[in-house]
């Protein structure tokens, strides 16, 4: 068997591929965070809870209405996005003129409420959600057995991330969005309804989180706490990448998934801390983050 640094190549490639899958989730979540931050200047602490909601709505659609995975993949994010937009219109919008930290605190409180309500209603041991039939099974790649569903997750998230990036960087809508981040009053003067744009952006960011949740449902069991631990790691990802660019958020997400995968091969005990260590190093060398602007 071929080995690299004393590790079977098989294990190495396998872990890298798995890292990429984790990275897909990091990327989708940090992209949503970066988008929301860009326009609202709010770090959306409830992002993890909304990701969890996405998964739960998918599960509810299945158990209550009998709606399958593909329906859920479209409907759940829409529902969660509407929920998010209601929150933005009723609560977040009151905070724009205040210190940005209030946004963080509010969304933290919301995260506690959402998480608590789902715990109260559905307990904690997790709800099963089956892999859709079309994506069941796996491919034997020689060095590892790749479940088709995981491959789909990586593909789907890459397409989504790339699509969002193109939307923001290459379309007129995206141009308005970028302009509004720089100077909202100016954009308003061009006859664009900035508050509506803000709401839609929040909705879009939230929808991304919810899609990630639906994608995650068949992999992990659907459980009220699935988002809260993930979100802190994603925060570290965001600090590492910096919020300067959309592309930065995506690239850093995938990259750190890979780093984590590698750590699992060489020193599994550190797998849960490695991202934070990377964050410390980045703060030392490049405080603004890998893709960040100095502010």
């Amino acid at each position, binding site marked *: 068997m071929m080995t690299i640094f004393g590790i079977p190549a098989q294990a190495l490639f396998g872990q890298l591929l798995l890292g990429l899958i984790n990275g897909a989730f990091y990327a989708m979540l940090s992209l949503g965070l970066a988008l929301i931050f860009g326009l609202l200047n709010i770090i959306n602490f409830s992002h993890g809870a909304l990701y969890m909601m996405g998964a739960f709505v998918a599960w509810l659609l299945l158990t209550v209405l009998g709606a399958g995975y593909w329906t859920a993949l479209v409907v759940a994010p829409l529902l969660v996005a509407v929920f998010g937009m209601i929150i933005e219109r009723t609560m977040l919008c009151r905070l724009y003129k205040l210190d940005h930290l209030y946004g963080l605190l509010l969304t933290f409180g919301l995260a506690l409420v959402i998480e608590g309500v789902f715990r109260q209603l559905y307990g*904690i041991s997790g709800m099963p959600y089956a892999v859709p039939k079309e994506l069941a099974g796996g491919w034997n790649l020689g060095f590892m057995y790749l479940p088709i569903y995981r491959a789909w997750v990586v593909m789907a998230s890459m397409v989504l991330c790339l699509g969002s990036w193109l939307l923001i960087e290459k379309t007129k809508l995206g141009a308005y969005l970028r302009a509004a981040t720089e100077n909202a009053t100016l954009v308003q003067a061009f006859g664009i309804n900035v508050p509506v744009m803000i709401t839609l952006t929040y909705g879009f960011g939230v929808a991304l989180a919810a899609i990630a949740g639906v994608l995650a449902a068949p992999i992990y069991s659907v459980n009220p706490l699935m988002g809260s631990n993930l979100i802190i790691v994603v925060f570290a990802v965001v600090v590492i990448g910096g919020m300067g660019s959309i592309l930065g958020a995506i690239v850093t997400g995938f990259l750190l998934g890979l780093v984590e995968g590698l750590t699992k091969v060489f020193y599994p005990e550190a797998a849960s801390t490695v991202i934070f260590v990377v964050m410390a190093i980045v703060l030392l060398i490049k405080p603004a983050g890998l893709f960040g602007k100095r502010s």
Partner: protein
Amino acid sequence: MITKRLLLGAAALALSAGAAQAQYSDNKVKIGVLTDLSGTYSDLAGSGSVEAAKMAVEDFGGKLNGIAIEVVSADHQNKADIASSVARKWYENEGVDAIFDLVTTAAAVAVREVSREKGKIDINSGAASTVLTNAQCSPTGFHWTYDTYALAVGTGNAVVKQGGDSWFFLTADYAFGHDLQAQTERVVKASGGKVLGAVKHPFPNADFSSFLLQAQSSGAKIIGLANAGSDTINAIKQAKEFGITQGGQKLAGMLVFLSDVHSLGLETAQGMQMTTGYYWDMDDSSRAFAKKFGERMKGKMPTMVQAGVYSSVMHYLKAAAAAKTDDGVKVADEMRKLPINDFFAKNGKLRADGRMVHDMFLVEVKKPSESKGPWDYYKVLRTIPGDEAYKPLAESACPALMKK
């Protein structure tokens, strides 16, 4: 009017007479169920345990030598500090006489410390660690339903005997996981098997794929899951996803509850072997209890922890009635004297180190086709006699025993 007053007076007399004869503090017996009502273990213990305790009190008759029995409950959220402060508050301020369930070792040990100090009784049904009958044993503390030793003996032995003689462990990286792994390793080696490796995973952990990959490449026949709750569920689900079980390797869940199997579904869990202290569909008495429990719990069947809570509360009440007091030390002595014979434990006995020794069962999860209805999940493969399942008293490291 007069008769009523007379009656009241007589009742009061009877009460005070009873109290003079038998010594019950505050003229009532108060039972506390301290458990995880909202966290990872709320399904296997939680409100089901509280309900089981209430059922036991009702079945006992609601009164003890004419004295009222009261049940209180609280959520320790799996946090040792909350558990310890609730226990302290209960003992010091609210006249609680005994605490039950106590799922999670951390919370269990915290309450054990307080109970020992106060001379009060704690009977553990939910926690796993053998530490409760060893370093942390207490004259008024008991461990009722199962422990890591019994799980390791039951599952470890059986699996090796069926040819599963090479193991790889996925271990939750904290004391409970390490403990469970060490106990199982010992059993596996003693039965002639070998351990090829182990990987410690963070707790709690959502993604087991990379650990499973390592287990897969180790080539071991058996992947031992030394973890619990959602960690076990996730590991099992993902093992199926990665084709590990189809590839010929088998999973051995070291601590799997009925509620976990329910949440996994038979499709995923089928064929898995495990050790349990109780299964609802064993005989008429266990079914009778389960039926009543199900009626009160939206059709859920009791886990071994919940059944253990019922059994331990019932035994405590019997002992408190016989001892005519709620003094912890005296009731504990009485509890050791009385035999335990109910739907949960046949010929159970309480040892000096606090261990309740009773038969355990090796079960296998049915195939979906074998299951005849909801909650019909297990086939009982073997009854493990209590003396085989539990660590011999002679090997106990209980400090109280060492002194003697």
